[in-house]
């Protein structure tokens, strides 16, 4: 038997040359195919040197559950039809909330294999058709339906259990969690595509003003922490997680155009190259080695760091999977930005804010930008793409000339993790 060479390098280099995002929010009149077209139009209209849609040779779309959310299976060819790109091959990738992270990886490998030069990848999710209980059930089906769900565990419940374990093991407290949300809303307030374009303080003031207009007792909140610690304003979802610890239910879509490096300059003078990709699988939380870490995130990031030839210290900024505030803290430790247990203090010290040394979730993250689950992985990549090109506007990171960015996209409660490292071509 021949020796297996686990070199895990791309056969050739791949770049991103265009990116598009739909508006994130609740859009009762739109189906997921319409959201995808909206993202695609945003991409087409922002391509530096334009491009011919007929050049797309292949596509991958991430989608968690159009089946349960929209009663529509086999969604990929519908997208191809709506874009008018049939008969090119298009494949739906389902890895829960990491669906489009995995779709991007398939697209990168399709080009790296030499099979194609131009591949469209993206994701979409239409979630707001169902009431909250229904969405809770659909998301819970990304956990183990035989041994986690019958135990009453929901998606927020499993991350609540992770938060409790983190609080037991380290000095993590409820305020640390809330501060992650405050920071992400501050960033989201600067993102015109975000579902919540308001700081927590602005949301608090709006509620006070509304109470005053209606002649009701005006709540006595003085600070955003007063507001967030009010159980009426910020109810428990799955203790120790409250409403403002959870990413919202969102409709949205995302897409990027991948091309082989050799032709990237036909599309733009500022391509962003895929320096490293990693993907790993993990077990249900109760079978995991640690309850305060996602093993798949550690494994996927190690693959991506190795491929890119960088370490955590080289990462200028990151978009991480903050489906819950605790998930951002755990991610910042799993990725090696901070030592285990040091994530909460980094939040306290502002190190993950726009002006910090490790900016995280400049887009507003899933918390404020929104979390249309199948679209989120590529949505993260789009934020890094704009940041590395220096075109993120008011939310551009403060450090000069960021060159290396990372995305961390989790499926389920850690069953899948996809990590990408992007680099601005010099």
């Amino acid at each position: 038997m021949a020796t297996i060479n686990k070199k895990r390098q791309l056969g050739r280099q791949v770049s991103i040359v265009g990116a598009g995002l739909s508006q994130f929010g609740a859009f009762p009149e739109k189906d997921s195919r319409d959201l995808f077209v909206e993202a695609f139009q945003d991409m087409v209209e922002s391509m530096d040197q334009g491009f011919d849609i007929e050049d797309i040779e292949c596509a991958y779309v991430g989608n968690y559950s159009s089946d349960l959310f929209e009663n529509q299976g086999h969604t990929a060819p519908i997208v191809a039809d709506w874009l008018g790109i049939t008969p090119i091959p298009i494949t739906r990738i389902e890895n829960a909330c990491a669906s489009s992270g995995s779709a991007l990886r398939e697209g990168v490998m399709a080009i790296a294999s030499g099979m194609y030069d131009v591949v469209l990848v993206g994701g979409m999710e239409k979630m707001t058709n169902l009431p909250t209980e229904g969405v809770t059930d659909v998301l819970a089906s990304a956990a183990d339906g035989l041994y986690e769900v019958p135990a009453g565990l929901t998606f927020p419940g499993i991350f609540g259990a992770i938060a409790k374990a983190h609080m037991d093991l380290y000095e993590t407290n409820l305020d640390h969690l809330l501060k992650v949300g405050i920071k992400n809303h501050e960033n989201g307030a600067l993102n015109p595509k975000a579902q919540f374009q308001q700081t927590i303080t602005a949301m608090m003031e709006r509620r006070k003003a509304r109470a005053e207009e209606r002649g009701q007792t005006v709540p006595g909140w003085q600070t955003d922490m007063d507001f967030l610690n009010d159980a009426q304003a910020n109810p428990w979802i799955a203790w120790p997680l409250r409403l403002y610890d959870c990413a919202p239910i969102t409709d949205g879509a995302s897409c990027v155009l991948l091309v082989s490096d050799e032709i990237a300059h036909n599309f733009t003078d500022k391509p962003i190259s895929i320096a490293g990709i990693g993907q790993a699988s993990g077990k249900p939380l109760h079978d995991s080695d640690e309850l305060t870490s996602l093993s798949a995130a550690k494994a996927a990031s190690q693959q991506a760091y190795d491929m890119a030839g960088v370490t955590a210290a080289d990462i200028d900024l990151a978009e991480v999977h903050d489906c819950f505030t605790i998930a951002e803290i755990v991610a910042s430790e799993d990725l090696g930005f901070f030592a285990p247990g040091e994530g909460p203090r980094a939040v306290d010290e502002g190190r993950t804010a726009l002006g910090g040394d490790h900016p995280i979730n400049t887009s507003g993250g899933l918390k404020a930008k929104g979390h249309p689950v199948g679209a989120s992985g590529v949505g993260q990549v789009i934020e890094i793409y704009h940041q590395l090109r220096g075109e993120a506007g008011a939310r551009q990171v403060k450090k000069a000339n960021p060159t290396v960015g990372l995305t961390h996209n989790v499926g389920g409660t850690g069953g899948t993790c996809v990590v990408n490292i992007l680099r601005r071509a010099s």
Partner: protein
Amino acid sequence: MASEFNSTAFYNKLKEERQLVGVKCKACSYLSPEPRPMCPECHGFDMEWHQFSGKAKLNTFTCISVVPVLMAKKGYGRDKPYCSGIVTLEEGPRISARINGVDGNNPQDIKTGMDVILDFEDLDLEFPSLAFRPA
């Protein structure tokens, strides 16, 4: 060769025998409360039933206020959260379970590390779930 180690058998044993019965790998002695036809450690296929004592310690937990449809039908919700968590069985492995006999409205009074034992008080015969209560 059909395997007898599956979730149907697990929940049947829970309902009918009121026992937590999982599997042991005959080759490497790997234990799992989840009946599996294959050992994830040594990758062998020779498993046997293994009865767990039902004694455990509470490892971590959550109290859920926004509940799934099934739990809403049982009266749980914002006013009446329920507790679920992860326990470490006396024999070593961990498993997810409902935690009964604690107050979901007062999570600060629920102590991780406490001894718990199997509980069948609230067992739903149609949708059975593994449950523990303070020992």
